[in-house]
């Protein structure tokens, strides 16, 4: 997208200028808290007598641990924006995306969106025991395509994934694929559809160089068609190239929200605002 640093600076300045205008919001996140309940986390307290005791005394099982993954995050994203989410492992970025997609219920606060956002995750569901071909069909159907649409898109998806470049791999079970190949196929399936609000989780870091270029191009296309794009990635260059705005999350709290170069710069230098 932005080839040089000057271009990026211009883009960020444009974003700042736009912020003064009236913009159409597409995603509103209002003081959101997300809590996971994890079963069987605390070991050692699982004896039958203690379990019975808990039943009788109606106390909560210690084996259920609550993980407060997102603690009171608020922001608004607007039409035409590409927003990057950064932060260290386990900071709550992916959880935030799942919640925006409506896949994880919030404990408190509200997430309001324009239409149904789609989460494009490389970890999306596929079955290892089935052939790549069956997985393509199944994935497309799950996204709500009709069988006719799936038929029409099938070849395009397989070509994009590049799975067949080294022989007829598409007819083999997915457990025979390398992890890179599997990730490529998953991304190709998910990217086959256009979305109003698109949430991308780590998609750019998978696959070889050639595929990364293809997928970046595809994301730009999707962004043109989509209203708003969110991108979670540990690859800061991918964020810099794709997003003009970046949100930095740490331990479930919002650290910084602003133009990409500024936020990513601070993040890389390890500075805190």
């Amino acid at each position, binding site marked *: 997208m932005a080839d040089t640093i000057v271009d990026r600076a211009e883009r960020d300045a444009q974003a700042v200028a736009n912020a*003064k205008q009236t913009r159409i919001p597409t995603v509103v996140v209002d003081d959101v808290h997300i809590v996971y309940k994890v*079963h069987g986390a605390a070991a050692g307290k699982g004896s039958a007598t203690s379990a019975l005791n808990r039943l009788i005394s109606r106390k909560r099982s210690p084996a259920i641990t609550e993980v407060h993954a997102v603690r009171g995050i608020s922001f608004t994203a607007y039409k035409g924006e590409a927003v990057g989410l950064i932060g260290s492992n386990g900071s709550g970025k992916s959880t935030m995306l799942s919640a925006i997609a409506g896949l994880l219920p919030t404990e408190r606060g509200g997430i309001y969106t324009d239409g149904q956002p789609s989460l494009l995750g490389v970890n999306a569901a596929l079955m290892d025991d*089935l052939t790549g071909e069956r997985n393509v069909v199944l994935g497309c159907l799950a996204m709500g395509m009709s069988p006719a649409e799936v038929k029409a898109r099938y070849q395009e998806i397989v070509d994009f994934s590049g799975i067949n470049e080294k022989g007829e791999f598409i007819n083999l079970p997915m457990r025979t694929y390398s992890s890179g190949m599997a990730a490529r196929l998953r991304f190709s399936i998910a990217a086959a559809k256009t979305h109003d609000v698109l949430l991308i989780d780590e998609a750019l870091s998978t696959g070889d160089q050639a595929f990364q270029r293809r997928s970046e191009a595809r994301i730009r296309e999707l962004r043109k068609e989509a209203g708003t794009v969110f991108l979670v990635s540990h690859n800061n260059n991918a964020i810099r190239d794709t997003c003009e705005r970046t949100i930095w999350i740490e331990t479930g709290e919002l650290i*910084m929200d602003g133009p990409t170069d500024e936020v990513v710069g601070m993040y890389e230098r390890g500075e805190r605002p």
Partner: protein
Amino acid sequence: MSTVSETINLSAPGGVDAGLSQKQLADKYGLKVSGARPGIVAYTKELWGRRHFIVAFATARLVAQYTTAKLGQVWQVVTPLLNCAVFYLVFGLILHNRDIPYYIAWLCTGVFIFQFTQSAVQAGTRAISDNLWLIRALHFPRACMPIAFTVIQLQQLLISMVVLVVIVLCSGIPIGITWLLVIPALLLQFGFNTGLSLIMARIGSKTSDMSQLMPFVLRTWMYLSGVMYSIQGNTNTWSWPFRLIMTINPASVFMELIRHALAPVIYSHHTKNHQTMPHHLWYIALGWCVVSIVFGYIYFWKAEEEYGRG
């Protein structure tokens, strides 16, 4: 909040919207709560739109299930046959159940039909918790999962039915026009199972202990359902409320309907020790099917937005 992001805040609304709160902004532009539960009509439409996914998912799971077992799909036939063999050993040979004519056909029908409901309940209980990865990755009506698992059980039952037909023919029961009744009976049972599976899916998604408890509940249900004995023959002396409960028990209703359809000779007056078929069984079966689907569907839909939490 930092001083930097306060000076250039990309999040705050600009222009005429400046100063609106998050909630006010969302209301002004008509944004909807993400992942909110749709109304029951919209939900049904969405579910209908995924019908191809349900069938494709069920077929894929059925194929994938046995790919790692050497004998593969053979187990689908062998498992119910082994079950029948065990019951025949205990109830037919050791306990000498000779009151029922064509006992092997009677027993096998019971085992296969009960198995259909039993496996639908078991699969339903785990439908959400075992597929959390799918539910957290993609947006689709969650009812797809328990329904798909019931479809898997139906596909498995159809394989078992072929075995059953062979058993029935080998017992010397002729092919008859009543065999056609098997189809509506199985459809009603499929409907009943779907509703039950939806109910169990919601319970199982909240209470992970359910899958430990279910084997005992199901075994009790099986022994109460007259899989290996005749309910009409054994409850004659009971007081009417108990007899009624035993008769309208859905598992025995479906079993009795299929037995009557496949082997009417067991109920024929010309047969020694013939069995009697309770009245109004078709209506009771239809009632169970409707009640189960309606209640199960609404009950499952009520918690639609919460299944991702696990």
